[in-house]
């Protein structure tokens, strides 16, 4: 697929340059273009139309372990940059494309709880956000409508508000089984909200339950922003440059951003000028770019007078308990997606010996090959031979996962830095991740794993299998350019504007103050909308390079 018929030449100087065409960048480009701004977006990846996905093909399970793997180091695609993870407990996951990581995300569409905005006030750790849940709630509701969220309203884990625009997706036999266990224990559960269309929504087709959401939706039912935002953005006049790998944000003598230098597909270095620059390249890519933009005037990287660029990386350590049942639960049937979720242990209870909590989600387990992904390194007779058949027959369609999204608290030692030797295919320094789980996180995961085992047992599981910390779980890249009111303790203000560079904005998950214990895409996009609407409203007061 090409950018045609919307292919336009970029203006010499755009009103706004957006770097990254993923969850947050898509929101910004669409809003700005529809409000009359000339907008150029630089995206290192390309289009991935639904016809390219393999979830409806027999080879799906083989290709998901390589071509469509969420870890860029495994995928090693032409648009990917490598990430040094040798000092990290968790691998960061991402996808470079129009739509960014929404192409491969599971579409769990969750809001923060009110307590997530007040962690310091309530629990005495980390920091409060500059605003509260009530401030973001209207943006959540508008984004629900924009992406077409399917769900059931009135969940008692959240304050009252508008319902979902589409009815919930089916929870299936395995969702029902999980709910029965939670009911026996008197624990909270609710049909999972998903940004997957349960009915036709605008141009989007309804879900047909392939269960292959994590490798791109062949049906086009999942709300990836190449489908939900880009058609309108391009129709409104935005210019999208794919295959554009940004290497530096440029600034003038007054310290104002003037644009960005990027390498195009032919290897030619180009400079796109703009009055305002918006970074939307995720919690790793944005921190990398700010550090790549160091100069004599900014020796520690751009917008980094606080010293916090790249620091406080949060990635949501993920634990899982798979339960196996006697009944055929048809647990390969989608969406995937979450069937049900639980917020039972989400809020702090100090008697547990740790603060904060986690959302749980029930997901299908896919086909027979994916179920074997964790069998490496075991004795041959344990995993192969007659046991190969016994394991497949015991688990195929009869197991499902309770996944646990653990809130990790910000820690300046967890960080993104530039790797001294590793580079991408254009010779640009690659990021290195330094990340260790804290003692609080370890206690939190142990507690939640034990409760998830109980949930499976209450539901009648005949056996359970524990993954305490999944290494390939770093979907949520947060916190590396945190927002705040004080320039000494934050990188950007509550509108995403850099304290040090008044025409440079960051609007992706980098600006999160804390991580919450839920999937963050709904918050990333609601927050991006709030930031860009403020920029539009304040356009007459916006400083731009001369």
């Amino acid at each position, binding site marked *: 697929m090409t950018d045609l018929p919307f292919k336009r030449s970029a203006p010499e100087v755009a009103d706004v340059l957006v770097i990254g065409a993923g969850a947050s960048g898509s929101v910004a480009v669409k809003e700005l273009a529809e409000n009359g701004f000339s907008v150029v977006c630089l995206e290192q990846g390309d289009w991935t139309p639904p016809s390219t996905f393999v979830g409806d093909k027999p080879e799906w399970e083989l290709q998901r372990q390589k071509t469509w793997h969420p870890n860029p180091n495994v995928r090693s695609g032409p648009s990917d940059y490598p990430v040094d993870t040798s000092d990290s407990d968790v691998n960061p996951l991402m996808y470079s494309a129009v739509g960014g990581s929404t192409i491969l995300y599971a579409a769990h569409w969750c809001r923060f709880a009110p307590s997530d905005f007040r962690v310091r006030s309530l629990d005495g750790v980390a920091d409060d956000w500059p605003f509260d849940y009530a401030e973001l709630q209207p943006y959540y509701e508008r984004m629900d409508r924009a992406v077409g969220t399917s769900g059931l309203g009135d969940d008692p884990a959240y304050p009252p508000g508008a319902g979902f625009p589409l009815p919930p997706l089916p929870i299936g036999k395995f969702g029902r089984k999980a709910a029965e266990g939670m009911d026996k224990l008197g624990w909270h559960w609710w049909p999972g909200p998903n940004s997957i269309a349960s009915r036709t929504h605008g141009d989007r087709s309804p879900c047909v339950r392939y269960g292959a959401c994590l490798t791109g939706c062949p049906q086009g039912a999942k709300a990836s922003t190449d489908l939900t935002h880009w058609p309108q953005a391009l129709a409104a006049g935005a210019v999208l440059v794919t295959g554009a790998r940004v290497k530096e944000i440029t600034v003038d003598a007054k310290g104002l951003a003037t644009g960005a230098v990027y390498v195009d597909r032919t290897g030619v270095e180009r400079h796109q000028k703009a009055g305002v620059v918006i970074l939307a390249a995720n919690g790793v890519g944005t921190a990398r770019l700010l550090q790549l933009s160091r100069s004599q005037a900014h020796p520690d990287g751009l917008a980094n007078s606080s010293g916090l660029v790249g620091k406080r990386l949060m990635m949501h350590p993920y634990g899982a308990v798979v339960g196996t049942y006697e009944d055929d639960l048809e647990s390969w049937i989608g969406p995937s997606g979450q069937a049900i979720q639980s917020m039972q242990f989400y809020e702090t209870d100090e008697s547990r010996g740790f603060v904060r909590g986690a959302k749980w989600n029930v997901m299908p387990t896919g086909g027979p090959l994916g179920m074997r992904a964790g069998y490496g390194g075991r004795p*041959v007779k344990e995993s192969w031979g007659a046991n190969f058949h016994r394991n497949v027959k015991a688990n195929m369609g009869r197991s499902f996962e309770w996944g646990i999204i653990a809130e990790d608290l910000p820690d300046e030692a967890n960080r993104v830095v530039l790797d001294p030797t590793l580079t991408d295919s254009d010779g640009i320094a690659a990021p290195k991740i330094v990340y260790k789980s804290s003692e609080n996180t370890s206690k939190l995961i142990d507690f939640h794993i034990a409760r998830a085992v109980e949930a499976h047992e209450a539901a009648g599981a005949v056996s359970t299998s524990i993954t305490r910390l999944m290494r390939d779980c770093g979907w949520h890249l947060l916190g590396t350019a945190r927002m705040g009111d004080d320039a000494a*303790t934050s990188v950007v203000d509550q509108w995403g504007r850099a304290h040090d560079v008044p025409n440079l904005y960051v609007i992706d998950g980098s600006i999160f103050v804390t991580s919450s214990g839920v999937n963050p895409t709904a918050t990333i996009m609601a927050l991006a909308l709030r930031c860009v609407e403020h920029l539009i409203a304040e356009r007459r007061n916006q400083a731009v390079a001369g």
Partner: protein
Amino acid sequence: MTAPEALSDAERLLYGQLADVLIPEAEGMPSATRAQVHTRWVDDALRARPDLLAGLRQSLGLASGHPAEEAVELINRDHSTVFDALGTVTAGAYFLNPEVKQLIGYPGQLPQPVVDDVESYLDLLGNVVERGPIYREAPGAAAASPRP
């Protein structure tokens, strides 16, 4: 998908011996060779995953001259990356065979309409609603971040 370089007849013969150690006839299921893993489905698997061909060939090189069972044990013990490739391509090829899928009750990822099953769980959900709100109220005003 890129077509892989075809395996020779000799390679297929040796590969079939290794594949049958991993997936023998048992529990009412056919062996790898009876399921045509080495003669047919391995080609489809390698078309989907051409990156596995090198590991598969390495495993054949390591197995040459050894009894198949001993070779598989050796590769698993001393060459984990090669064993991963051998195991993935073999299991992946086996599950591509429609007869195997039918025997394990897995139809593949097939389209089916979304059904509304809310009525089927409203009884359980009513209990959740009856217990009332579980979110924690939070103060409107933010506390300042501690200064460094």
